[in-house]
């Protein structure tokens, strides 16, 4: 009788190991765009819109050289160096590795990323966008700064378990415009959902750190290591009484309709990202946000 039990257990264990250690997909990049001034400018714009600068630049640190702490209930993450330094940055990364990192959430060696790197949002970005970003990142001043290891609780240190987390919380899928909606709305959707990854802070998370989908964009009153984040859906708990113009001005200047200037982490997001966007992109983001379903703030 013991043999079938042992065999079954072995099967389950090996299935689990296969699942956890199954290699990530390979990506091929056929047409890398020629690097010219236009591509670099486009890339810089996208890097700004993506919020890369805020997390990958430490306080008083070099631009994009990493080292900024991100607190969470699972410990402190330290952002890596994404300058083109070949040893400590991403200077040796191929285009394919770069694209795969965003679309599939793995590093150049195929190790799973913690979702502190918001690939759950970035997965919507296509190759064209990502390669423009890479072209810009390759053009910034290389800085030699070795990455600092994350300081995590013991049960979060075993990276293969992230495969399970991804199974529960992640699907690799590109953004497809909704043909029924306007061009502005679709632009806003791309900026809010994917590049701007607004939901990462503005949604509550479950005990595994996954976004609670029922309350996406409805705020995270407890914060997630960082500041509490307000509800950004058009609910009375959120931005129901904000106009498109109110949101545009907020994303440009950080000023609320009451004339208050925001502080906290959002002040940094505005300074590093949204204030640097084109006015029509801020307008598109505002239109998209006001089109979200109205959801009450979770208690």
């Amino acid at each position, binding site marked *: 009788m013991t043999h079938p039990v042992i065999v079954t257990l072995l099967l389950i264990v090996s299935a689990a190991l296969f699942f956890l250690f199954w290699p990530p997909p390979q990506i091929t990049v056929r047409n890398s765009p020629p690097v010219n001034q236009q591509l670099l400018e486009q890339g810089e714009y996208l890097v700004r819109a993506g919020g890369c600068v805020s997390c990958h630049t430490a306080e008083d640190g070099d631009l994009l050289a990493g080292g900024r702490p991100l607190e969470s209930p699972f410990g402190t993450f330290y952002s890596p160096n994404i300058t083109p330094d070949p040893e400590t940055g991403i200077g040796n990364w191929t285009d394919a590795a770069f694209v795969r990192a965003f679309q599939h959430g793995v590093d150049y060696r195929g190790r799973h990323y913690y979702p502190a790197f918001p690939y759950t949002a970035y997965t919507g970005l296509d190759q064209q966008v990502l390669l423009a970003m890479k072209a810009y990142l390759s053009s910034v001043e290389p800085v030699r700064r070795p990455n600092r290891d994350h300081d995590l609780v013991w049960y979060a240190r075993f990276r293969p378990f992230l495969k399970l987390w991804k199974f529960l919380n992640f699907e690799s899928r590109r953004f497809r415009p909704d043909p029924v909606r306007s061009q502005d709305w679709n632009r806003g959707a791309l900026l809010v959902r994917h590049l701007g990854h607004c939901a990462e802070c503005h949604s509550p998370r479950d005990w595994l750190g996954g976004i609670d989908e029922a309350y996406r964009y409805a705020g995270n009153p407890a914060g997630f290591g960082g500041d*509490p984040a307000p509800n950004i859906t058009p609910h009375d708990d959120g931005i129901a009484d904000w106009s498109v113009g109110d949101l545009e001005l907020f994303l440009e200047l*950080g*000023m609320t309709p009451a*004339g208050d*200037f*925001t*502080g906290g982490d959002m*002040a940094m997001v505005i300074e590093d990202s949204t204030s640097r966007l084109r006015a029509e992109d801020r307008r598109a983001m505002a239109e998209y946000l006001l089109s979200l379903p109205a959801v009450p703030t979770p208690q």
Partner: protein
Amino acid sequence: MDRRHRSGLLLVAAAGLCLTVTLGAVAHEGATGVVKERMDLMKALGRASRGLGDMFKGEAPYDEAMVLEHATVLAESSPKMLALFPEGSNEHPSETLAVTWERWDEFTEAVRASETESAALLEVARSNAADQNAVRAQFARTGRTCSNCHEVFRQPKD
């Protein structure tokens, strides 16, 4: 207890009462008073900012005289700010964080920046109020100094 002792007791009690009242008054002056004063000042700044914002949003007609009026409020209020943050004045309902006095030099510098930028805004409003883009750009720089302070020295809003 004889009479002499009684009068002495009365004297001590009277002195104690005076001291209590005085301390109470001082505490009131030093805390609630100044917190309220600076909240009122912030509200005035907020009203002026909102007034400018409404014009940029097109919710109010763009009026050069109003630009000058709001810019004047911002430029004249900002220099009053620093004196309204005496050390330790962050009891309820104040939203000021204790770190303000731990990093006082940094705080001072941040407030001075808002004085400089709001003075520059007043200058633009006086000389070039018709140029909405110029006013808006300088207002953005002024607002950035507000956010920079709130980012570090004010309780996060929930």
